[in-house]
């Protein structure tokens, strides 16, 4: 037994040494640093003052606005990701010619790096030379400023029809919406992979039985496929929410949080605070708060997985 223990610990040391230094220790440091005034170098102990500054004080406006922007971003991205992913996975699942080619194409955006893909989209969204404005022009509409447009999309649609939309209903800025369009394109392959795996787990007998009973295609989809896919749908929902809470690259590259901070998500705010403004203490407090929000979603996700394994 002793030998077994020694063998196990020897096997575990390399991985745990790395995880200890670069995961566990930093997690403790993050809390430690968040308790100090720490502008590039460590300053005076502040207790929870950094947190109160972020939640209620000098940074509260930026903080809450960034959270609202982040969840708005989630709200205009995730439903479309799930809907498109579901439909395409459903169509792709069946035996048909060229399925492999279709799959390869649909996964392609997902494996492409954000920086390269964003460089292409920046041009597609370009106010002057962009493809989208070209298409709009052929319908006699536009041009739009896309990634540079701080106005809310509902406001823009309203003013097109001569309606005055109040500020609170202005909607996400066109810039944030454009980032969302990019994001939907970029992650489509991920949802398809997950939904295809889920479809593979639905027993064929269910379909056969339903068909023998004369159920229509739509009926089969809504009463068999959708309910049996619900674990995957919840999984994609939570993991996509976590993904949005953590998203940085596409926003940094496409809008850098602008215009007028309308796409400044929480990760962008944290990045600016600690990296560009050198306010490490405040940034750490924001980071800890963001981590708590992410962990809440992670716990929900684990709960779902656990339940599914037990009863599924």
């Amino acid at each position, binding site marked *: 037994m002793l030998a077994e223990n020694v063998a196990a610990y020897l096997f575990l040391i390399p991985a745990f040494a790395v995880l200890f230094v670069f995961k566990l220790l930093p997690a403790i440091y993050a809390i430690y640093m968040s308790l100090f005034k720490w502008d590039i170098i460590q300053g005076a102990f502040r207790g929870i003052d950094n947190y109160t500054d972020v939640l209620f004080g000098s940074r509260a406006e930026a903080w809450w606005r960034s959270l609202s922007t982040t969840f708005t971003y989630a709200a205009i991205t995730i439903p479309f990701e799930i809907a498109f992913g579901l439909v395409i996975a459903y169509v792709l699942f069946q035996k048909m010619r060229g399925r492999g080619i279709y799959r390869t194409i649909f996964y392609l955006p997902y494996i492409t790096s954000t920086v390269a893909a964003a460089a292409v989209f920046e*041009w597609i969204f370009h106010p002057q030379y962009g493809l989208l404005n070209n298409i709009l022009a052929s319908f006699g509409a536009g041009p739009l400023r896309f990634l540079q447009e701080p106005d809310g999309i509902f406001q823009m649609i309203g003013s097109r029809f001569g309606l005055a939309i109040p500020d609170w209903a202005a909607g996400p800025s066109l810039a944030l919406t454009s980032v969302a369009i990019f994001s939907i394109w970029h992650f489509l392959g991920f949802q398809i992979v997950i939904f295809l795996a889920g479809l*593979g787990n639905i027993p064929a007998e269910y379909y056969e039985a339903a068909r023998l009973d004369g159920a229509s295609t739509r009926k089969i989809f809504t009463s068999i496929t959708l309910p049996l896919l619900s674990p995957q749908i919840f999984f994609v929902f939570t993991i996509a929410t976590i993904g949005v809470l953590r998203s940085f690259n596409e926003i940094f590259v496409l809008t850098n949080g602008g215009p007028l901070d309308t796409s400044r998500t929480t990760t962008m705010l944290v990045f600016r605070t*600690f990296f560009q403004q050198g306010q490490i203490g405040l940034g750490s407090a924001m980071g800890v708060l963001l981590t708590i929000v992410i962990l809440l979603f992670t716990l929900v996700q684990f709960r779902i997985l656990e339940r599914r394994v037990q009863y599924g």
Partner: protein
Amino acid sequence: MNAQTTIPRTAVRSLRRPPLPPISSSLARHAILIAVGAVVAYPFYFMVSSSLKPFFEAIQVPPTVIPQELHPENYAEAWNKAPWARYFANTFLIAGVNTVGELITSVPAAYAFARINFKGKTLLFTILLATYMMPAEATLIPNYVMMAKPIPGQSAIFPILRLGLYDTYQAQILPFLASAVSIFLLRQQFLSVPNELHDAARMDGAGHFRFLWSVVLPISVPALVTVAILSFYGSWNAFQWPLIVTSNPDIRPVQVGLNAFRAEAGSSYHLLMAAAAFVVAPIVLLYLVGQRYLVQGVARTGIRG
């Protein structure tokens, strides 16, 4: 909490395909797929076609769908405008070491969790789970501070460990030498190795190391390839971390180089598209070769990138 049930698997029991009810006709299905496929693939076509156009054609309004003139020499021009050879060499080095290193740390750890009963197993597994749940955002700032040089006159160990690795390869490698996800994935595989094999090896007097090396690993090649591909893919596309811990182009990876090139290229859009194309090319190749493993890895781990 039973650790067994919390492994983030998205249930890929098999990829067998029972017949689904047909959507009205196969023609309709192809129509949907071709329409969506065209929209999905268009940016790639746009990237490649723009990269072959001359300067004025690339920014022409409306854009030409098929390049009027082909200028493959754009690629050479883009290549010579920035230290791409260096960026690529750096990325291959970093991604290569990360991939090998992650396998070296994950394999024994996964084996220990799958096949050895030891004291403190539950505790260590819970810690592993905690590091898995900890998002990179939680550790970004402290890791960044740790990479800075020790402040003269202050301890390099307390209160904050100062590694002084800013602007080095090590800073881009060390934090990624172990991953909880890889350990989970391999553990799952190692658990599926039949106990009889283990008993037989024991009877022959083989210890854990020999059993792992000569029995478990050879039958786990697909899982190892999956872990390796996911790890390589992650390193190849890494952006935020190298962006903040490096400033010297000599050690920066391709993604950070491409981001810098966006500014350098200015309105030379055809050159930017050529650069984007050669930055994307290796990972697309890897994907075409190892699609099965990558897809399986994504389905099993739920890594969303």
